């Protein structure tokens, strides 16, 4: 069982999500996704979304049930969650069987795609992306990067990409060496 540090005691001031989006690359190879998520949560008082191979969902629920659950938590006053989920999933053109499977049984590429849609459905302001991006072939990575850039430009979404020292990311707005630099960046943006 992983033990996570609670950073919330160190930062009392709350940082509001900035009005413009951006992509930040963290070049610390020792940084885990749990640490990053907790740090961002302590800064913003909101848990960021994640995009990783082991999807952060309820494991014993199906894809559809997870979509319903997350959407109803993100939009508690929305009355027609099923229509909302339907609208979000339709562009992916998935079969009914796929939606009734669990996230674990899906191929990694599809799982990531669904996680991206799920995070958009929940209107996330922050998204932490794990190191799977650097393992992809160049063309696939370009597709994802294009998607990230469009979202960061059009919406106030902030993408935090985990990488290491060798990661070259011309698409990133800023390259950071340590986790703590995120707070200064967010402060400047506000």
């Amino acid at each position: 069982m992983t033990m996570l540090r609670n950073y919330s005691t160190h930062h009392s001031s709350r940082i509001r999500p900035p009005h413009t989006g951006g992509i930040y690359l963290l070049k610390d190879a020792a940084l885990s996704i749990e640490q990053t998520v907790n740090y961002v949560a302590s800064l913003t008082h909101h848990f960021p979304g994640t995009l990783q191979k082991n999807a952060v969902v309820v494991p014993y629920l199906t894809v559809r049930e997870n979509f319903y659950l997350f959407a109803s938590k993100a939009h508690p006053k929305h009355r027609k969650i099923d229509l909302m989920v339907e609208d979000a999933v339709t562009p992916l053109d998935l079969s009914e069987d796929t939606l009734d499977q669990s996230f674990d049984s899906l191929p990694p590429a599809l799982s990531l795609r669904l996680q991206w849609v799920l995070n958009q459905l929940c209107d996330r302001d922050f998204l932490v992306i794990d190191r799977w991006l650097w393992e992809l072939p160049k063309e696939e990575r370009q597709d994802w990067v294009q998607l990230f850039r469009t979202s960061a430009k059009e919406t106030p979404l902030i993408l935090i990409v985990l990488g290491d020292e060798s990661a070259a990311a011309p698409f990133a707005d800023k390259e950071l060496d340590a986790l703590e630099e995120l707070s200064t960046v967010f402060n400047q943006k506000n």
Partner: protein
Amino acid sequence: MNGSLFSFYFVLTAIGLLLSVAALKFSLSFLQVHGWFTDPSSNKHLTIYLEAPAFLRTLEHYEATFTQIFCLFSMIGIGLFFFIHLFIHYFRRREFRNYLLMGENIFSLSIQLVIEQLMLLTISASICFVLVVLFSRPLMDLLTEWEKTLIQPTTFFSELEVMQEMDSPKEVLEAGGPFTPRTIHSMYMYETVSPKLITVIQKRLWGQILEGLFVFGSSSFLFHSLLLKWKSVRMHQA
């Protein structure tokens, strides 16, 4: 494992021990057997035993051994319970991590998972208990057999067997056998205490163990279902 989980187990263990001790102390058969030692005149059956202090002493020894076995069973049971929990936690560690990344409070999450597991274990234990009650007769016989081998070194059962194997002292004497203190004693015992009665006591003491388990099981079930109502985990943000 975090501190809150350990403190939860500590409280649970304490409650479990208290309940099992209470079940032992207040069960009917214990009070009955204990009553024979402390207040002989209160029991109408005691007129039989008053005349046989040797038998009473062996019964007392038997009771002490029984209490030891009961405590041993409780300790082993609680230890097993704890290790089953650790085992389930190990297999649910990814789920636990996911909930934490969703923004779940670590304390309420621990409580939630522990309670879920407790419910599962208690329900399965209750089902086992019902099955035991339904098929108790062959099981009782089996337990009695085990008990005989467990408490073999005490004089209680060896004397009992001697009594069962021996011919009636009356017959021995009538056949011109020796008129020794041993013959007199065994005759005395043979005439007063029937082995059937002893088997009844034996079975009652085993019934007491099951009674204790039932009290512990049902009360812990109630306890956990109450806790579940109080501590329902909320996902702060999905």
